[in-house]
């Protein structure tokens, strides 16, 4: 039995499964949180990105046993009290998504970047977001949305 906190809920979730089960499938199948997506299963596309204790991780290669006692945040946990997270808000304002499949992972990666680096340079963005692929090619708008949040943080 593995216990971990999901999306700031009041109590831990308890999951009884093979300790090697990737967190991605625990989230999607056991917990019904289908926001994190399966794109490759080998940490190459980033569609599975969630936060573990605030850090962006690829849940498709993160075994269940390694999240025990920790905090997991998924796309479902980004909005608080009915308010979208600033990154989600920026994603809408810049009309980022096309097919939308990669976007939960993109948002999680962007949110982690902005937490660590509130005013990222283009190079910072390139590096931090390099593991999140977008087949529809929404990269220009992802960059614009990240900068929108960064500029908003300045109060500008």
């Amino acid at each position: 039995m593995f216990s971990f906190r999901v999306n700031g809920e009041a109590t831990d979730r308890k999951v009884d499964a093979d300790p090697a089960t990737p967190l991605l499938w625990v989230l999607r199948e056991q917990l019904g949180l289908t926001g994190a997506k399966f794109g490759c299963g080998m940490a190459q596309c980033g569609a599975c990105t969630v936060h573990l204790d605030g850090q962006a991780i690829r849940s498709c290669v993160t075994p269940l046993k390694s999240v025990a006692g920790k905090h997991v945040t998924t796309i479902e946990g980004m909005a608080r009290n009915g308010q979208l997270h600033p990154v989600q808000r920026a994603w809408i304002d810049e009309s980022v998504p096309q097919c939308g499949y990669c976007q939960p992972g993109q948002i999680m990666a962007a949110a982690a970047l902005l937490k660590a680096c509130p005013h990222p340079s283009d190079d910072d963005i390139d590096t931090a977001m390099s593991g999140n692929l977008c087949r529809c090619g929404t990269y220009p708008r992802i960059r614009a949305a990240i900068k929108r949040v960064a500029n908003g943080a300045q109060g500008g």
Partner: protein
Amino acid sequence: MEGFEASAGGTPERIGLNRRELVKLSAFAGLGLAIGCASQRASATPEPAERAGSAKVTSNDSNVCVSHYIQINENNSVKLILPWTEAGQGIATGVATLVGEELDLDPASITFASAGYNDLIREKEFDSRETGGGAGIGQSWEFVRASAIAARMLLLEAAAKEWKVPVAECALQDGKIIHSKSARRVPMGAFATQAAKLDLPAKSKIEAALAKPRPFKYVGKSVHRIDLLDKVTGTACFGTDVKVDGMLAATILHSPFVGGVAGRIDDSEARAAPGVVQIVPTAYGVAVVADTIHNAFNAARKLEVEWTGINTALSSESIAAEQRKLLERPGKAAQDKGDAPGALKRGHKASVFEYELPYLPHATLEPQNCTAWVKADGEVEVWAPTQSPGNAQRVAASVAKVPVEKVRVHVTLAGGAFGRRLRNDYVAEAVLVSAAVGKPVKLIWSREEDFIRDYYRPASSHRVEASLTSKGKITGWRHRIACSSITAWDNDKPPSTPGPLEGIDEWAVEGAINQPYGIPNLRTEYHQHESGVPVTWLRGVGHSHNAFVVETVLDEIARGAGADPLRYRLDLLRPEDDYFKALQLVAAKGGWNGGRKGSLFQGIAVHESLGSTVAQLVEIELVKGAVQVKRVVCAVASGLIVNPDIVRQSMESSIVQGLGSALHQEITLRGGQYEQRSFFECKLLSMAETPKIEVHFVPGGTLPRSIDSGVPSVAPALCNAIALATGKRVRKLPIDLS
């Protein structure tokens, strides 16, 4: 009333109200008003001429197909049931905009779902269209607005009747029915049920309303996409997100060899793996069914399959060599204008240009998947991100051996499509597996399987011969193309062999024929070459390879004649041509001055596909011998723009994909096996490589056309810039300058 000619995948189609009837959906009575549009099936016996006003779909109207409907509920919510799949291209928002325009309702308040064969009166009456060819918005323009206009008229009539006022004094405003004289203001939904009881307005009234010019409130504005919120909150439901109570999970192993079939299977370890329910060999591959997808993937890795019937001599080199050999002799003529062979003989200078272009993958980020449930009573239910639900229904019925009427298809959002989901092989697989285990099954392919069981953009070889005058004008042009036939592979059987092809494959020659450059002697020839590698439509299709060849050959000829490639093209075009306008616009916005811009190099190309024309200007820098794309400017001529920002999205997408393919992508074969199985081996363009992108519109046009015509002109513009920068002409993709 004029319809317009829309090019849906190369087949012209005339659309106008004279071939369609509005339909009020009587089965929806009691819940509100639902109005759709129906057309006659091609095989129908002629219906009485006047159907408007009395049209109701009844169980006897077996020849009538409803293609979409608008649902206005008593609680004032408005839902759009679309005959297309929303795969990122923005069709849901485009169509909702047309509905909002005619109902005077903010499109943001409209919800949508893709129609499958499920929620209308009877499944087979729903004419779900194929999503593809950029045809959706053009096809919607009249008949979606007509049905919204009819809804508006009925709502106002119902209110006027109740209020005992002239209907001319009533209007729709921001989702409300208003009668200013009496200061009445009521949500539309309040009259939905009463409106549903009235006869449809006369067709002439609707046509008059359609034809009445007035300033648009929502059309032409960049209204926000209506699918954004779900996609940023993770609530959007893709095929892989479908949940059916009691469902099992499955994955499937396909032959990594071209044309291979499963021989001996050692499933002893796989069967013993945790959670495994059953191993199901099928003609498509060997499926593993388990309690969870993790357990299915895990068990699949323990399967040992001997693949038989393989051809280990097959390789990318052997395919290219065979195609090159075919090009040594004449092929079937797809077009023959003037006397190209004669002109080539007589020309001052005849040049030969040879090209080799690779198989390209779709690589949708959501792998192929389908949830299927073959029930004990013979009913079949299928959930899939398919682009062709009608075909999915037929495939499922055929595989489950049930009548088509027994199959319900639900269409989910698609995590990318690009043509891959016009095929329904994954539907056949899921149905076979569900039938074997007697439970609902969600089948998800691994990424590796998605790469090796694609239906690829065909690999092609080209030979262009052009004769020139001493001044460098083209007098004759012969373009010979060798590649597989998409038509021959247009089926969802296990892909071991292609079917027959009669004549020319239109998908192989599009973009090579019907050039606008005024070349007097023009001949295009096609050689069908099959290697056993399955092929299908990938965004751009034949234009993706032919535009590359035509636009780089033209560029090379221009430079060889000492001419500016922009000027050279403009001299072959007429000022009223979209090609001319798009080139001029892109040159102006891109700052074209012969191709050099400081330390940067620019290349241009232009191409028309699906009825729209896109010119691209690609600006590059050479950094330590490597190409860096700094900026791409594009000019789009696609008629009336319903939503400028969605067109920009489409162009951004096309440019990223076009650059990615040209710089990085090929599917190669060695020893009869596919070599690419991951994003590491077949790279997408990265964030860091993505240039600045600017999109401009050529004004003009009263009807919307395809907004997805951007891919073909990207790669040639890039390679034209590379030619200027390095002196090297790229004749083989992906680009390799070493």
